[in-house]
């Protein structure tokens, strides 16, 4: 079962890389880009076949390793 985990910096945590991307987009002539937030996507292929169990397993993986919840939030999508 494919599980996609999206890890982003939490709201309110300054994202200097996102800000640098926004600045570079402006340099390229893209106007009106008001904010940019960047993060990472982690795609898991799990042996689990029950979607709820897969989601619960992914949530535990996020809490224990995939995200640092001091600064990051995560979203889980089961496909």
């Amino acid at each position, binding site marked *: 079962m494919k599980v996609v985990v999206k890890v982003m910096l939490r709201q309110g945590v*300054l994202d*200097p890389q996102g800000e*640098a991307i926004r600045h570079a987009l402006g340099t390229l002539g893209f106007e009106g880009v008001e904010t940019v937030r960047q993060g990472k996507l982690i795609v898991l292929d799990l042996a689990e076949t029950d979607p709820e169990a897969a989601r619960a397993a992914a949530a535990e993986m996020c809490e224990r*390793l995939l995200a640092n919840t*001091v*600064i990051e939030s995560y979203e889980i999508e089961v496909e």
Partner: protein
Amino acid sequence: MRAGVIEFPGSNCDRDLAVAFAAAGARVTRVWHKETGLPKGLDVIGIPGGFSFGDYLRCGAIAARSPVMRAVVDFAGAGGHVLGICNGFQVLTETGLLPGALMRNAGLKFLCRSERLRVATTDSAFTRLYAPGEEITVPIAHHDGNYTADPGTLARLQDEDRIAFTYADNPNGSLADIAGVLSANRRVLGMMPHPERCSDPRLGGEDGLRLFRAVAGILESA
């Protein structure tokens, strides 16, 4: 005094850290990350700088979950002294032994230069030989040294006098100029600057050596 220095794949300050502990009079044992236990009789554990596991996922994240770190967490829980420098500081925040997190430098650049630090507290085994407010010069070399913590954590660090060092000229955007913090029991210190790189006058300074002498002295007499 016996010091243990942990080594991960990608650690690159492990030897320097061992030499600095030895210069302060410690007998040093180096401990590979796959060990599930620590050598008996260690008084202090050093977690060195470097790029453990290639900084994959997040700096220090993979190292923090390695077998030896479980033993280090137990060691700290039993009142042991632990010093994490640079990547070692990142590892300590990732294990939860120290609060907060180290983010990408505000200027996005890797910074490798000497910085002036202020000794923010002398109330720890590591900082007791400095004068309160003393300014020392210590090299930094990091890409992710931008210390951050939520407002409640910062207030607690300030109220409990747990900020060990601050930058005189904040190079990386760290909250409240923080360069190093202590655990609640004051026995775990994490800092981004490298005291082991200024522990020999032949290498450009010895402001860092007092930190190692301080911890060696207190544990020797214990």
